[in-house]
């Protein structure tokens, strides 16, 4: 693999980074099954994921200045061959996905050990890597049909991973089944949309699609294709009225799975949406079809309020966080709808910041689930005293979720408010602040339960094991670190937003 040559160009290992990014977890997944030894499954998965993270860091450092890496699979030149393309936008998402996976795996070792029987643990790590492969593939590819294939790889493994929660609660099975039905409908809608685009253009390479679509924005085929893609991907993103699979899936999946999915899966889907809206179609198309006014603004605002309000009234902390995720997706959509560089920066930054925030919160929830055997508020009373380290990290996550200054969550919300003001939409910026107040309510309820209520149970509850605390604290500290140190995140978000807004010219070589 190291020194394959294509036409007249000798390639080194460094040139193959884009394919290795996807290939390493993809090959390790079946390897774990073939070796079949439980004690080797975790180390192998961790090595694969850590290597992927290193590759993602290398790729990000190469493109953060605004460069583009194009990789032709098998040396077949696009548009005929499949192309992998790394720019600031997807390198940043790759960085998030691999980073979270590398942190969730050490966490999973204890958590999965407690939540799943031994016989399924080997397969769990294999599926985890497959899910990661799918997410990375969706992110890195520049071929529209390839997106579908990788999307289904990640989705199918996600369904199984969610169903693994059935050892704790049998409702994980129905949650997984419902997600399977909805996810498949979404993915099939996406393929129908691609079919329409292919009929109109005869190509599947994204840059090529963008070129050939440019003249046909009033074609009904193209518009129908866009609608199918938007709805199909909207199901995966859990855009407000299409979110019904999400609360149950997040609530009943094993803690490690929820952490990984909440921090990465919907974020990758948001990225695909961005890629299709801004690179395959152009911002001009959005203006022409008034998609923003009809779909993005109302549903984004609805999500921000309805889902946040629902979150306040939950009895289960895990379910509360799931609803809060739907609300946060509203912010990301709003950033897209504002259709400006600042708005897009806010979306991309929030995608990352919310990813690490939710990772911290769900890791904390997993620690509670381990020690108090429940994630209901009633059973979490007074845990601030018995599990001080976990609770402190959860509070940091909660504070970042609200968007208090000094945390990662603040920066992206601040950018979003700025973007709204830039356009003169001051009512929208007021609404952003107002919905953040709803977040204050549900986070305060959590703090109150943890610190201001008397412990519920008689038997003493121990602090979570170090292998879970360490990843939890790393993401919790990252929530603060990225609130101050903005070079990486803001720089990547800016480069990504500029690349996306440049439209298809940003996709040129």
């Amino acid at each position, binding site marked *: 693999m190291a020194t394959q040559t294509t036409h007249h160009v000798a390639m080194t290992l460094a040139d193959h980074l884009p394919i290795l990014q996807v290939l390493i977890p993809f090959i390790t997944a079946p390897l774990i099954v073939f070796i079949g030894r439980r004690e080797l499954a975790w180390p192998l998965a961790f090595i694969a994921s850590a290597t992927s993270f290193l590759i993602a860091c290398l790729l990000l450092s190469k493109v953060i200045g605004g460069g583009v890496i194009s990789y032709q699979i098998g040396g077949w030149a696009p548009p005929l061959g499949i192309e992998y393309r790394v720019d600031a936008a997807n390198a940043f998402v790759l960085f998030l996905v691999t980073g979270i996976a590398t942190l969730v795996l050490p966490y999973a070792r204890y958590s999965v050990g407690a939540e799943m029987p031994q016989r399924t643990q080997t397969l769990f790590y294999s599926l985890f890597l497959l899910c990661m492969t799918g997410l990375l593939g969706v992110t890195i590819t520049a071929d529209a*049909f390839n997106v*579908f*294939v990788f999307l*289904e790889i990640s989705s*199918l493994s996600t*369904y*199984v991973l969610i*169903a693994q929660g*059935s050892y704790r609660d*049998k*409702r994980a*099975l*129905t949650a*997984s*089944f419902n997600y*399977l*039905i909805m996810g*498949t*409908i979404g*993915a*099939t809608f996406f*393929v*129908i949309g691609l*079919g329409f685009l*292919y*009929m109109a253009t005869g190509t*599947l390479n994204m840059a090529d699609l963008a070129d050939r679509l440019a003249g046909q924005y009033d074609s009904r085929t193209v518009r129908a294709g866009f609608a199918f893609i938007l709805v199909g991907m909207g199901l995966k993103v859990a855009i407000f009225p299409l979110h019904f699979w999400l609360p149950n899936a997040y609530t009943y999946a094993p803690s490690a799975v929820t952490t990984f999915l909440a921090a990465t899966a919907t974020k990758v889907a948001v990225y695909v949406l961005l890629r299709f809206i801004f690179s395959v179609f152009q911002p001009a198309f959005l203006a022409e079809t008034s998609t923003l006014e009809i779909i993005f603004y109302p549903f984004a605002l609805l999500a921000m309020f309805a889902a946040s309000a629902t979150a306040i009234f939950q*009895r*289960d902390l895990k379910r509360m966080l799931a609803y809060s995720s739907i609300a946060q997706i509203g912010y990301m959509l709003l950033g897209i709808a504002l259709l400006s560089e600042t708005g897009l920066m806010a979306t991309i930054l929030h995608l990352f910041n919310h990813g690490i925030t939710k990772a911290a919160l769900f890791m904390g929830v997993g620690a509670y689930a381990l020690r108090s055997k*429940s994630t*209901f*508020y*009633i*059973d979490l*009373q007074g845990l601030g005293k018995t599990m001080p380290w976990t609770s402190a990290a959860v509070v940091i996550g909660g504070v970042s979720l609200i968007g208090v200054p000094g945390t990662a969550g603040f920066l992206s919300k601040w950018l979003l408010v700025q973007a709204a003001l830039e356009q003169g939409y001051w009512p929208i910026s007021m609404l952003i602040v107002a919905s953040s107040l709803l977040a204050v309510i549900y986070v305060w309820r959590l703090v109150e*339960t943890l610190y201001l*209520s008397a412990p*519920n149970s008689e038997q003493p509850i121990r602090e979570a094991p170090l292998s879970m605390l360490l990843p939890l604290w790393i993401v919790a500290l990252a929530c603060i670190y990225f609130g101050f140190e903005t070079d990486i995140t803001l720089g990547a978000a800016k480069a990504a937003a500029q690349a996306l807004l440049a439209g298809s010219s940003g996709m040129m070589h």
Partner: protein
Amino acid sequence: MNIFTTEFILGHINYWLFIILMMTGLYIVITKGNLVKKIVGLNIFQTSVFMFYISMGKVSGGTAPIFPLDGIYDPSIAYSNPLPHVLILTAIVVGIATTSLGLALIIRIREEYHSIEEEQITILEDTIFRTEHLPTVGKDEAF
């Protein structure tokens, strides 16, 4: 302009069939309570998309896209477009995986709930949901 001429309807017969099949599948998924029927509906829905792609690749008068054995390419022969067919092979594999995973989940659901009717499962789940982890009497200060 009246677009609903006989020519329009017959000329797009493959799309009409695709739409009928697609809607049949979606209708089954949405309305049927039996989980196996839902999976069958999903299958019909996916199959309609396979048909859509396959008919898309047809070139009128075109033959099977096989390169002549003697290697001499005759430009007068029209070939059908093989790309949508190849794409849909992948989608068929995905469809099989989805179906088998869905059926496997149904088996596990039946083991746990003793039913594969959505209505009964929902009733069971609602009962659990309403009663789980409620504060016991005298301990309701949190809610």
